[in-house]
């Protein structure tokens, strides 16, 4: 045992010890935990969905996700729905592991059915669905057995629209524009530019156009995306998830780029 108390027991990392309370060369190695091999419950995502986008607009919220479920870099399932209605007020969009998402769908369906059969006419508000999911996700991360998803929850209740995010760590937040995964880098700036400060005036057609164009940009830039996607709309009258929309795309520009098109040399 050395004389630096900070080196005792499990090593810390930069994020915690950013003032170098012990010398660099003394810093313990990562991944040398004696028990790391003992329990195998930590996982990695297998079949995954990419970005989900969502915005607020005049009549409620809109959410978009493509229909691809990838197996690593393989485009494995090309017609998977990643938007799910929870009752009549809420829609859930999922990126990350698709089997974990299907597990969540089953869980939420049971929750909604139980609430229906209670027969008192109560339905869950989007905020309540979001809070419930946050609790589930946080509880699972705390058991070191996470549900490997980043989820968007959106809906309308009593004239107020709601958009929230939850991920595998149980991290939550709300904003008028949200995006998961690659979309948080590529599409979110576009969405913010179009939506922020205009949440209460943005028309349905404009909202749909903004999402469609963002999905197009994502398709060109995200290798794990597809030009086939769905848009969910939640207004005071309920949830409406569209049939898949297929974008026409143009690759002629690629002909001139070396290593992109069908060059022979």
């Amino acid at each position: 045992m050395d004389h630096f108390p900070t080196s005792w027991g499990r090593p810390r990392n930069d994020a915690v010890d950013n003032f170098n309370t012990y010398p660099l060369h003394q810093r313990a190695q990562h991944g040398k935990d004696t028990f790391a091999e003992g329990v195998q419950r930590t996982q990695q995502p297998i079949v995954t969905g990419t970005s989900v986008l969502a915005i607020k607009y005049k009549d409620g919220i809109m959410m978009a996700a493509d229909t691809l479920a990838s197996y690593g870099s393989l485009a494995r399932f090309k017609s998977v729905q990643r938007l799910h209605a929870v009752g009549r007020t809420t829609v859930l969009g999922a990126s990350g592991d698709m089997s974990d998402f299907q597990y969540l769908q089953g869980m939420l369906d049971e929750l909604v059915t139980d609430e229906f059969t209670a027969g008192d006419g109560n339905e869950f508000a989007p905020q309540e669905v979001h809070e419930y999911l946050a609790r589930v996700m946080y509880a699972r991360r705390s058991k070191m057995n996470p549900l490997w998803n980043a989820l968007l929850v959106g809906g309308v209740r009593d004239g107020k629209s709601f958009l929230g995010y939850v991920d595998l760590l149980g991290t939550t937040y709300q904003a008028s524009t949200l995006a998961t995964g690659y979309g948080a880098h590529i599409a979110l700036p576009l969405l913010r530019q179009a939506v922020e400060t205009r949440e209460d005036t943005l028309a349905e057609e404009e909202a749909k156009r903004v999402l469609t164009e963002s999905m197009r940009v994502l398709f060109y830039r995200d290798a794990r995306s597809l030009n086939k996607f769905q848009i969910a709309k939640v207004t005071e009258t309920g949830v409406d998830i569209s049939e898949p929309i297929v974008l026409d795309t143009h690759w002629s520009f690629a002909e001139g780029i070396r290593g992109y098109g069908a060059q022979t040399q």
Partner: protein
Amino acid sequence: MTSIGTGYDLSASTYSPDGRIFQVEYANKAVENSGTAIGLRVKDGIVLAVEKIIHSKLLVPDANRRIQSIDKHIGLATSGFQADGRHLASHARGEATSYREWYRSPAPVKEVVSRLSMYVQAYTLYSSVRPFGVSTIVGGVDNAGPHLFVVEPSGVAYGYHGAAVGKGRQLAKTEIEKLKLVELSTREAVVEAARIIYLVHDDQKEKEFELEMTWIGDETNGLHLPVPKDLHTEAERKAKDALENFE
């Protein structure tokens, strides 16, 4: 009931010498004394209606419902001991939920009914328990269309076009037989159901009653829901009119 008092009626696990289980028959008596419940299976759905006797003016209107939801697409009306009815509904909900968990799809009505009837039947086998004092009308619309069943205290479950249990069942059945159920829409059936409940109610002997009605069909998007207020009021008005003409 000639064998009453012969000692064969104390346990559900003992037959009488002529092959009857008196405890089950007594359970049926509990049903016969209770407010009438009817169910109609029509062209595009199901209508359930109950004559809920109000034994005290202090009761909150619309409370203590006797028609309950088992799943989004299945409703259940009971006649007999209310507490037994709630217990059976709770069990049926568990079965419907379990089916959803296993198969990721809504349970077929007859599956729920068959599981429920097995549960009811188990309470006719042991000396340590009493059979359920309710007859249960289960109605639902699944992907094979509308279905209507009655589960009796013995555990038997029959499918019906129209069903009636409780005090006024005889007259109700006679009236239901006059209907052309396969041609009726749920909207029309609601009016008929209200009329029948009002007809069988004996206002000489009985106290006040509340008409409780639910339906499942195309108009409810396949959901088991209470009949909307305006339709309920209209059906009730027509029922009262019909009653005056009938007498």
